[in-house]
């Protein structure tokens, strides 16, 4: 019998998080700080709107690109938040930001094209690039740069085959952000070297310094940037599976082809909920952002008190402390912490080799939960220091 599997698929490594997940689920009564989704419920007015849409019998497909009302609201959002004008043909509603990542790469990459992927970063850029027959070229972000991407790093990674740069900020897992000055530098390089940008801005609403700026808003960048965003993080809507991409029509329309054949359309009642979210959800975002910010400060203070070194992150809901001084790997640290103190955190290496020496700790947890986990982490550190 022939091997039914594609060589490509077999070569793709399973997610490093998955491995850890399997260990954690076997542990009973473990406290987890390993979750990459908000702890808030979706605000009730948004849920209520979805329920209403079901009551009204809105149970059919929408247009492939998504509800016109929703795409109009997405255009409004881009205008208000970034001053960027898009029309509805430049928007595509997807099944989570994840689908948008996949189809953007597939729409833009030819076999052998190189895709620059800064790491540590979300787990799907590399495999999705491979599935698009592109060549992932990872760039190791550094703590001394606060895990921001620098112009020099991009320049030294560029070859004549470089087609696309993935820009994952605010960043999961580091919590790093890129401020305007940082982006201007990167934008110049992209324009000079004719490189396109896939800007994954799913955490755009969760920044704790200045407001997030999209690279698409910088001169010369709108026409070469696909912006990905969604509802999961900003409105605590992970399970609704709803994201979107905006960008130049000639790219979006090609992404739309893949989307229409692979997906048809994003879930209809999620789309109705999303309209409500964009229209009336600003105060929810503010409330959640303020809560996250309190916890973020609290964690930074607690790390300082227990002598765990950590750069100050200004985005998403993760902190990324360094464990280098203990002389063990991230995985060893994380599995030791899990076994001894029953606290689950994610080793930095789950997000790329450059995550070695770090841990991702999520603060999408109540303060009580964080406190309990922190006291256990402190115990664990004491045993390591002994």
């Amino acid at each position: 019998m022939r091997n039914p599997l594609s060589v490509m698929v077999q070569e793709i490594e399973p997610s490093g998080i998955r491995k850890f997940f399997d260990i954690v689920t076997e542990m009973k009564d473990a406290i987890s700080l390993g979750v990459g989704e908000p702890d808030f419920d979706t605000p009730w007015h948004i849920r209520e709107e979805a329920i209403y849409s079901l009551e009204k019998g809105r149970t059919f497909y929408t247009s492939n690109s998504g509800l016109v009302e929703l795409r109009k609201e997405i255009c409004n959002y881009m205008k208000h938040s970034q001053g960027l004008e898009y029309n509805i043909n430049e928007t595509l509603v997807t099944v989570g930001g994840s689908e948008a990542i996949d189809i953007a790469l597939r729409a833009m990459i030819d076999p052998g094209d190189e895709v620059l992927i800064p790491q540590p970063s979300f787990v799907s850029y590399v495999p999705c690039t491979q599935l698009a027959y592109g060549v992932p070229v990872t760039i190791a972000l550094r703590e001394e740069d606060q895990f921001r991407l620098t112009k020099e790093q991009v320049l030294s990674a560029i070859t004549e085959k470089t087609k696309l740069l993935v820009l994952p900020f605010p960043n999961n897992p580091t919590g790093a952000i890129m401020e305007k000055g940082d982006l201007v530098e990167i934008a110049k390089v992209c324009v000079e070297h004719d490189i396109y940008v896939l800007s994954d801005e799913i955490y755009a609403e969760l920044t704790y310094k200045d407001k997030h700026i999209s690279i698409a808003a910088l001169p010369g960048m709108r026409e070469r940037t696909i912006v990905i965003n969604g509802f999961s993080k900003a409105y605590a809507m992970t399970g609704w599976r709803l994201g979107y991409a905006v960008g130049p029509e000639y790219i979006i329309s090609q992404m739309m082809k893949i989307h229409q054949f692979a997906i048809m359309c994003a879930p209809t009642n999620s789309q109705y909920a999303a309209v409500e979210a964009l229209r009336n959800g600003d105060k929810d975002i503010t409330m959640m952002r303020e809560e996250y910010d309190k916890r973020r400060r609290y964690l930074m203070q607690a790390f300082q008190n227990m002598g765990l070194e950590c750069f100050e992150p200004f985005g998403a809901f993760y902190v990324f402390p360094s464990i280098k001084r203990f002389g063990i790997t991230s995985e060893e640290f994380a599995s030791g912490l899990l076994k001894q103190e029953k606290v689950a955190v994610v080793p930095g290496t789950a997000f790329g080799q450059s995550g070695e020496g770090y841990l991702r700790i999520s603060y999408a947890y109540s303060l009580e939960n964080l406190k309990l986990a922190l006291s256990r982490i402190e115990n664990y550190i004491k045993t390591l220091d002994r």
Partner: protein
Amino acid sequence: MREKILGILEKNGRIDLGDVAAMLGVTEAEVANEVTQMEKENIICGYHTLINWDKTSDERVTALIEVKVTPQRGGFDQVAQRMYRFEEVDAVYLISGSCDFTLIIRGKTMKEVAQFVSGKLSVLDAVRGTATNFVLKKYKDHGTILDDDKNTDERMLVTP
């Protein structure tokens, strides 16, 4: 700063002020100082416990009383005071709409509440009429769903 401290204390009056300080990125002394000051200024009027009495063996009833009064020289404050001095009265609101005040009354039994209304409240000179509404079940109070069954974290333990 004050509003931020209040926002935290409103949800958790027992929180450690050191934690509040860490969350707001200021020193504990600053927070403690503000809190003391706000207590003095009657901005913080007390620290209470939200109890779901329905779950205890304690028998008690709560009623919302709508009260119409004759407008008084000197406004409503004096009438309000005549009412809120009674210890049975838990809350007094001057409101717009079909009546002038809404009172929340606590008593051991419906009879006790009824006696209070007829014997103490209705007889006040300014009171023209009352309507008593007994509370049958309390679902949510002070922004808190009392019998929230959703206390478990339903998220998967580790996700990207």
